[in-house]
C-alpha cells in the first residue's frame, strides 16, 4: 500500500540528511508502528507519505514514495487527500471549522463529494467513533481524547486507504489514549485501513502493531520486522520489554498478559526480596492520608487563619487545606487538602481536566482560591509578588518553551540569574549540569523537547526554590530523555527539594514519586504511598506492577538492583 523506494530527505540548512536509505513496504490493512529516539526523522518519514514532505516543508526528497500507486513527487498533498489521511499530535492545530459535524464534513467538501453521500458518511463516522452525542458541540469544548477522535474522524470521512498518525496519544491520559487506540484497532479490523503510526509511549501501542519500523539513529537505515524481534534490538522499548530482556525471556513478551504467563519463575525469585523504596527524608510518621472535608475543613480553615500568620515554614514545603478554586461557573477544585514535605516527590494523577494543572497553578498564585488556604513555605502565593514567590516555588509549565524568552541559552541564563537575584553564572552552571554539551549560542528553539525541558528547569532552579512543580514533564520525551529527567529529579529530591509533578505517565510516577495523589473532578480521591495507590488501580498501575502483581514491584530498575544484590 505504501512503498518507499530508496527514500532520503535532506533539508537545505541541515548538515546531514534527515532520513536516508528508507526502502520498505507497508502492506495493505496493517497497523505499522514507527519507533525511534527523538530527532531521527519519524515525523519526516510520516510527512513523505502525505506528500507534505517535501511539497509543503521544503527540502529535497530522493527516491520515490508511492501510496496506492500514486507517486508523491507528481501529486501534491491536496491531490493525495482522498487516499491519505494525516492526523498530528495536536488535534487543535488540525481543525479548520468549529463544530464536530462541520469538521467531519470539511474534507469531503473539499473533495467535492455529493451532499447525500456526505450526509451518510458523516452519520456513519459519528457512530463508528462514538461521536454522535457530540455532533453539535464546538470543538474547543471537547476533551483531549474526544478532540483526537474527531481529528481521526475528520480524515476518515473521505475514506482514505492509509491513515498516518504522528503521536496521537502523547497528550492524552491513559483512558483517553485507550479510546483512541480502540478506534484505530477497529479501523484496521473492520475497514481494512492501513495505519502508519509514530508514538513515544510504546507501552500503549506496541501490542497492537503488526509490523514495527525502527529508526535506530539519525541517518541510520530503518530496521523492519515483527514487533517482538524489533523490540529485542530497539533502543526504545516499553518497560514490559525491558523486564523481558532482564529476565531473558524469548520470544520477548509485548503485552502484560504474555509477560505474566512467563513471570512465575521471576515472581518466585523476587518473592523473598523487598523492593528498594526511595527513602523519604524527614523520617516522621508515614505520609498520612489526609482527607479533611466539608464543614470540618471550613471550620479548621476559619479557626486556623489567625494562627497561620505566626506559623513558621516548618517542614511542609506546601500546605493546602480545604482548597476550592472556580473557573467561571465551573468548580475546578473542591475541598482539596495536600501537604508536601521537603525532599518528598508527589505525583498528581487523574484524567485530563481533573484539576491537576489548576492545583499546580494555584500553588504559584495564578488562581485565587475561592475557599481554603494555600501556604507555600509560609507564603500565601496569590498575595505574594512574583519576585518574592520565586524563592518559595517554581513551576515548569506544560509547554516549557513559554518560560524561555531569550535568543540564546547564555542570554536565557543571564536573564534567569537577574530575575532570581542569583550570583551571575548560577543558572549557566545548572544548565551545564543538566544539559552537558549545549553551547552558549544555541537558540532555545533549536533544542529538542527534553533539552528544552532541562533548560526551563534550570531557569526555575536558579532561584533555588524549595518546592518545584512540573506540569506534564514527559510529554513528547522519548525513553532516554525520560530516564535523564528521572535522574535529575531524583538528585533534586535528594538535595531536599520538594517536587510535585502532574502527569499521565504512570511509569514516571512509579519510578519517581514517593506519594501519588489522584484527583477526579477537582477532588482528591486517593492519596498514599506510590506502591499502594498505583497497584490498586488498573488504570494507574505501571506495566511491571501488572506483570508481577501481587508483588509490590513497580519498575525494572528496582528489580535490576534487587537481583543484582541478591546474586
Amino acid at each position, binding site marked *: 500500500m505504501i512503498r518507499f523506494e530508496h527514500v532520503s530527505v535532506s533539508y537545505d540548512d541541515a548538515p546531514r540528511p534527515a532520513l536516508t536509505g528508507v526502502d520498505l513496504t507497508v502492506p495493505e490493512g496493517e497497523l505499522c508502528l514507527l519507533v525511534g529516539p527523538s530527532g531521527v526523522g519519524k515525523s519526516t518519514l510520516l510527512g513523505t507519505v502525505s506528500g507534505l514532505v517535501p511539497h509543503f516543508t521544503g527540502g529535497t526528497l530522493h527516491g520515490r514514495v508511492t501510496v496506492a500507486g500514486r507517486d508523491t513527487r507528481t501529486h501534491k498533498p491536496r491531490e493525495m487527500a482522498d487516499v491519505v489521511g494525516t492526523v498530528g499530535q495536536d488535534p487543535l492545530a488540525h481543525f479548520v471549522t*468549529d463544530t464536530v459535524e462541520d469538521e467531519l464534513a470539511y474534507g469531503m467538501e473539499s473533495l467535492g463529494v455529493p451532499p447525500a453521500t456526505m450526509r451518510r458518511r458523516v452519520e456513519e463516522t459519528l457512530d463508528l467513533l462514538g461521536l454522535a*452525542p457530540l455532533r453539535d458541540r464546538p470543538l474547543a469544548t471537547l476533551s483531549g481524547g474526544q478532540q483526537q477522535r474527531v481529528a481521526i474522524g475528520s480524515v476518515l470521512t*473521505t475514506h482514505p486507504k492509509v491513515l498516518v498518525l504522528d503521536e496521537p496519544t502523547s497528550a492524552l491520559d491513559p483512558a483517553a489514549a485507550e479510546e483512541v487506540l480502540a478506534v484505530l484497532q477497529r479501523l484496521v479490523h473492520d475497514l481494512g485501513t492501513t495505519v502508519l503510526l509514530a508514538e513515544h509511549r510504546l507501552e500503549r501501542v506496541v*501490542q497492537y502493531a503488526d509490523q514495527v519500523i525502527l529508526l535506530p539513529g539519525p541517518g541510520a537505515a530503518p530496521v523492519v520486522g515483527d514487533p517482538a524481534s524489533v523490540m529485542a534490538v530497539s533502543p526504545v522499548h516499553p518497560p514490559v520489554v525491558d523486564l523481558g530482556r532482564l529476565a531473558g525471556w524469548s520470544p520477548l513478551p509485548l503485552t*502484560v498478559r504474555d509477560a505474566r504467563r512467563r513471570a512465575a519463575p521471576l515472581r518466585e525469585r523476587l518473592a523473598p526480596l523487598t523492593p528498594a523504596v526511595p527513602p523519604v527524608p524527614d523520617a516522621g510518621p508515614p505520609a498520612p492520608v489526609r482527607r479533611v*472535608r466539608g464543614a470540618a475543613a471550613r471550620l479548621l480553615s476559619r479557626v486556623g487563619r489567625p494562627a497561620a500568620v505566626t506559623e513558621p515554614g516548618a517542614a511542609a514545603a506546601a500546605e493546602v487545606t480545604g482548597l476550592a478554586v472556580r473557573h467561571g461557573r465551573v468548580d475546578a477544585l473542591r475541598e482539596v487538602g495536600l501537604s508536601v514535605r521537603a525532599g518528598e516527590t508527589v505525583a498528581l494523577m487523574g484524567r485530563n481536566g481533573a484539576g491537576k494543572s489548576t492545583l499546580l497553578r494555584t500553588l504559584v498564585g495564578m488562581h485565587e482560591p475561592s475557599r481554603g488556604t494555600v501556604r507555600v513555605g509560609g507564603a500565601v502565593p496569590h498575595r505574594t509578588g512574583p519576585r518574592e514567590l520565586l524563592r518559595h516555588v517554581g513551576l515548569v509549565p506544560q509547554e516549557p518553551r513559554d518560560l524561555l524568552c531569550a535568543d540564546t541559552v547564555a542570554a536565557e541564563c543571564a536573564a534567569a540569574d537577574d530575575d532570581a537575584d542569583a550570583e551571575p553564572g548560577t543558572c549557566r552552571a545548572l544548565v551545564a549540569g543538566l544539559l552537558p554539551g549545549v553551547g552558549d549560542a544555541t537558540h532555545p528553539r533549536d533544542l529538542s523537547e527534553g533539552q528544552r525541558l532541562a533548560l526551563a528547569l534550570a531557569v526555575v532552579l536558579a532561584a533555588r526554590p524549595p518546592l518545584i512543580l512540573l506540569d506534564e514533564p514527559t510529554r513528547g520525551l522519548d525513553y532516554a530523555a525520560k530516564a535523564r529527567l528521572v535522574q535529575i529529579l531524583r538528585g533534586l529530591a535528594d538535595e531536599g527539594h520538594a517536587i510535585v509533578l502532574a502527569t499521565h505517565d504512570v511509569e514516571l510516577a512509579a519510578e519517581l514519586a514517593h506519594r501519588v495523589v489522584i484527583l477526579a473532578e477537582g477532588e482528591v480521591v486517593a492519596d498514599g504511598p506510590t506502591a499502594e495507590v498505583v497497584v490498586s488501580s488498573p488504570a494507574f498501575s505501571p506495566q511491571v506492577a501488572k506483570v508481577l502483581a501481587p508483588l509490590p514491584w513497580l519498575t525494572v530498575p528496582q528489580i535490576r538492583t534487587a537481583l543484582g544484590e541478591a546474586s
Partner: protein
Amino acid sequence: MSRTVGTGGAQAAPPSPVRTPLRSPVRSPMRSPLRGTALHAGAWWVWALGLATAASRTTNVLLLAMLVGVAGYVVAARRTDAPWARSYGVFLKLGLVVIGIRLAFAVVLGSPIPGTHTVLTLPEVPLPHWAQGVRLGGRVTAEGLLFAFCDGLKLATLLVCVGAANALANPARLLKSLPGALYEAGVAVVVAMTFAPHLVADVQRLRAARRLRGRPDRGLKALLQVGLPVLEGALERSVALAAAMDARGYGRTARVPRAVRHTTSALTLGGLLGVCAGTYGLLADAGGGYGMPLLGAGLAAALAGLRLGGRRSVRTRYRPDRWGVRAWLVSASGAAVAALMIWAGTYAPGALHPPAVPLGAPELPVWPAVSVLVGLLPAFVAPAASREGAMTGGHRRAGGQRSLAAAAEGDPRPLPRPPLEGAPAFPEPGAGPRPPGRAQGSAPARAVGGPEHPGVAGPTPKEAP
C-alpha cells in the same frame, strides 16, 4: 452516566450539604446550537444591520438605549453557549470605550457646540496660527459633553448591534452561504476569526509564564514583552493549519476551459468597474442619469462572474442552512425597524435629533419607540438553543432525566467512559468494576471496542438514522 451521578455530591462528598444544592444552578447546562433547527446566519445579520441602520438615524439617547436593550434582550434569550456567543460582552465593553474616547476628545479638543454651562476650564494650549481652528484645552461645556455623549452612544449602539449578530450567528455558517468563488476568501476570514481566541489564550499563558520567571505579569510593559512570542506562536499555528488544510484537500480545483476562465475575469472586472462608476454617478450630482443603470449592469456582471467562477471550485456543501419562515420573520423585523426609523426621520426629525442646546431632558417619541420594539420579534420566533439554561428563565422540564442530561452536557467530558472512570474511589486490587485484562497493556483483542466499550460502540446501532 454513573460518573455524573457520582459527582453530584450525593455519594462522593457527603459532608458538604450546603454545596450540593448550590451547584446545579451555577453549573448551568450547555446550550449548544442544534444544526437542524438553527436559524440561517444571514437572517441574524439582516436583523442586526436593520437595528444598526435605525441606530445611525437618531441621536436620541432614549431611543439608542432602547435599541441596545432590544439587542441585548434578544441575545440573552437566544444565544447559545458556543464560543462566538461569548463575544457579546466584548462588544459591550468596546462600546463603552468608544463613548469614553469620544468624551475625552470633546474635553481635550473642545466642541463646536456653543454652550453656556461651563463644567470646567482646562488651560488652553496656544497653537501657532497655521493650526487655526484646532483648539487644545479651554472651556468644556455641558452641552458639548452631552452632544459628544450622544454621538458616542450612537457609535456604541452600532457596535453592540454588530456584536449581537456576532453572538447569535455562527460566523462560519454565514460564510458557507457565500458563492463558491468567494469560498477561499471566506475560509481566510473563518481562520482569522478562530485565531483571535487562540491569541488571547496565548497572551494569557505567556503572561502567566512571566510570573513564573519572577517578573511582574501586569502592566503594559508585560503585555508588550509577550508580543513577540505570541506572534511567533500564531505564525507556527498558521503554518500547521495550512499543512493540515493542504493535506485535507483544500484548494483542489477543477479544470475549466480557457474561454470560461477569460469570460469570468472579464465579467468580474467589468462588473466591478461598472459598480464603481455607477456609484460615482449616483453620488455625484452631475451624473444622475447614468448612475442607476450602470450600477445595475455592473452588479449583474459581477454576480455572473462570481457564478461562473464558482465552476472552478470542486467543493460541495454539507447541509447548507435553509432560509425558512423564521428566517424571513427575523430578517423582516430588523428591516422593519430600519424602515420605520428612516420614515420617522421625515415625520419627527426633532424627536430623533434632540438639540444639544439648550440643555434639556430628551423626550421619548412614542411611534419611533414602538417601532424599535418590533426588533424584539426574534426573541419569540427564533428557534431557541437546544437546552434552555437558567439564564433565560425558560421552562424546565421536571424529572431527574433532564438534570442528568444537562449535567452531562455541562461536563467537560460528557462521554460515557469505561466503568473504571466512574468509580468514586479507587478500589482494592481485583475489586475494580473493570476486569484488569481490559486495562492498558492488555491483549489487543479486548480493546477493539466490544459492546462493553461505550466510548466506541455504545450508541452505534440505535442512532443511525
